[in-house]
């Protein structure tokens, strides 16, 4: 059964802003011998995910779990198997303008994410220019956006290199907003910023969400950031979603051992998990194999089944409660 079916209750008849259906991606590992068969490493393994209109969706997981790849696939920057629907429509590579007007992104490092040779105004105007807006409307829109992101309108004449890190990230957000997209992907958008600036940017995201009704996919390794902003959260491990629930549901009742570990690893006053946490144990020394659960080799509660059969994503919520999906034999 497809996970998106299970989410039907959450969406009712509304078409989700974004739908990822069975998205898979893999790359070839170099062959061991010159003409040997190439091994494949799966980066994404049949990921299903839907984001409703006006929803803040959090995606967390360790480095290399595939969360950034998923974001890039949604933006059409890489090719993947499976389907990515925006407002129920599928866009191919050539429809980059249509795609860009639906989905935009804010990336991790604002210092390198903006072309250093250009001026702020030019960068903000560029999406409008390639989408064929007339000049006067472009200028008006740029001023609107500058106000929206809380930057002085005179900054548009400055070069990117003259701005501070926080200002640069605001410009990145402005570039993403200027086309009024349906969804913005924030890929570790605050991890390169220092704490106080990161807080300002998070507040900006929060206010943009409430003012514009923007849908957002918030990709982060920081659970607290995601909890603060998001309505629903999915936890990824090794290219699969292993747990997904409402933010409160995931924080109050984390079920997957990996989620428990992730919560424990976040030093925070919000830490809701009580008592002793399962150590990241080597007690069960299953070899790293693709057959069983991806967490099995590091799981303290690992049983034999975990190493032999990959668990399916199941809904464990009580009837009439929001879905709580989990991929674990023990839950």
């Amino acid at each position: 059964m497809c996970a998106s079916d299970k989410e039907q209750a959450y969406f009712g008849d509304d078409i989700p802003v974004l739908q990822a259906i069975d998205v898979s991606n893999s790359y070839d590992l170099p062959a061991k011998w010159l003409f040997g068969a190439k091994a494949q490493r799966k980066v994404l393994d049949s990921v299903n995910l839907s984001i409703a209109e006006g929803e803040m969706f959090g995606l967390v997981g360790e480095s290399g779990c595939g969360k950034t790849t998923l974001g890039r696939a949604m933006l059409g920057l890489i090719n993947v198997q499976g389907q990515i629907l925006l407002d129920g429509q599928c866009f191919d590579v050539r429809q980059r303008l249509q795609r860009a007007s639906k989905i935009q992104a804010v990336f991790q490092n604002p210092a390198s994410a903006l072309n250093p040779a250009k001026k702020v105004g030019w960068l903000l105007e560029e999406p409008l220019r390639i989408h064929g807006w007339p000049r006067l409307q472009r200028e008006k829109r740029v001023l609107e956006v500058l106000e929206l992101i809380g930057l002085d309108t005179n900054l548009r004449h400055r070069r990117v290199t003259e701005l501070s890190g926080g200002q640069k990230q605001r410009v990145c957000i402005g570039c993403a907003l200027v086309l009024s997209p349906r969804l913005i992907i924030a890929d570790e958008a605050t991890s390169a910023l220092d704490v106080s600036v990161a807080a300002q940017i998070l507040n900006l995201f929060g206010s943009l969400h409430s003012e514009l009704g923007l849908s957002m996919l918030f990709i982060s390794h920081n659970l607290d950031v995601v909890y603060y902003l998001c309505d629903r959260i999915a936890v990824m491990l090794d290219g699969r979603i292993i747990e997904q629930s409402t933010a409160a549901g995931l924080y109050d009742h984390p079920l997957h051992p990996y989620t428990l570990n992730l919560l424990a690893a976040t030093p925070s006053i919000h830490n809701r998990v009580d008592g002793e946490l399962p150590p990241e144990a080597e007690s069960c020394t299953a070899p790293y194999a693709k057959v069983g659960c991806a967490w099995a080799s590091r799981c303290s509660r690992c049983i034999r089944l975990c190493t032999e059969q990959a668990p399916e994503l199941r809904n464990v919520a009580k009837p009439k409660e929001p879905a709580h999906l989990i991929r674990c034999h023990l839950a």
Partner: protein
Amino acid sequence: MSFIVKRLLISLVTLILVSLLVFAAFAILPGDPARVILGQDANEAQVAALRAQLGLDQPLPAQYLQWLTGFLSGDAGTSIKYKLPINLMVASYIPVTATLAAMAIILMLLIALPTALLAARFPDSWIDRLISTLATVFISIPGFFLGVLLIWVFGLGLHLFVAGKYISYETSIAGFIVYLFWPALAIAVPCAGMACKYLRDSLMQQLTSDYIRTARSKGNTPGRVLRVHALKNAIIPAMTILGMIIGDIFAGSIIIEAVFSVPGIGRLLVSSISYRDFPMVQTLVMYIAVVIVLANTLVDVGIKVIDPRVRLQ
């Protein structure tokens, strides 16, 4: 500002060293200009008299200072071979070489820019490999051989121009430009090979940057991402070799002028060396050095002006 002053001072020191080196080279080289002028039959007294007349009997430092003060005051002396003021002669030869060099630079850019962009647009494709292979081939071919090849194929084979029939700019500007096209091409192609390879790598490096990902997610086409976003940032590191290539173009023009019998500075230099006309050689080498050093200084300053990252410092 202080950067420009510092850079100009370095250039000045370079030029002084070049002048000393050229002077020293001629002092060490065998062959006496007086003997060359008078021929083998002249007796010792005649040679000595001519040496005194030319100032060659003076000690070397005195000769150097005399030449230097003359050069700086705008009087580079008289050619031993032609018995004419050197600066007057240089002035009549310079337009030819300057046009040739300018055409070579333009041709180089016209070849290198599109090919580098095309190679970077389809990295690791057959077109990228073809461009890379051709670039390597043209870098490896010596300029004079390429010149001979051009004469053979386009001059003698296809009759697109008459080899050796130089048309002066005083006769016909159009004819002059058309004739110089072929030697300029022979100079430009090896330089274009180098510039293309360098620019392609620089572009590829830019394409992995985060800002390229931003530009792509804005909906830019791959071609526009290359031209509008990557190119300017890629040219900044590639400009450093442009300075070196300008040196190559002058070195190339010396040989190519001989191959295509173009009466430019290069041919004047070669004939002056064989005649031991060393006031002429010294002056020509100095002028060439000034141009190359100036070009490199301009490139360095230009990088500072273009590159927004170093501009503020």
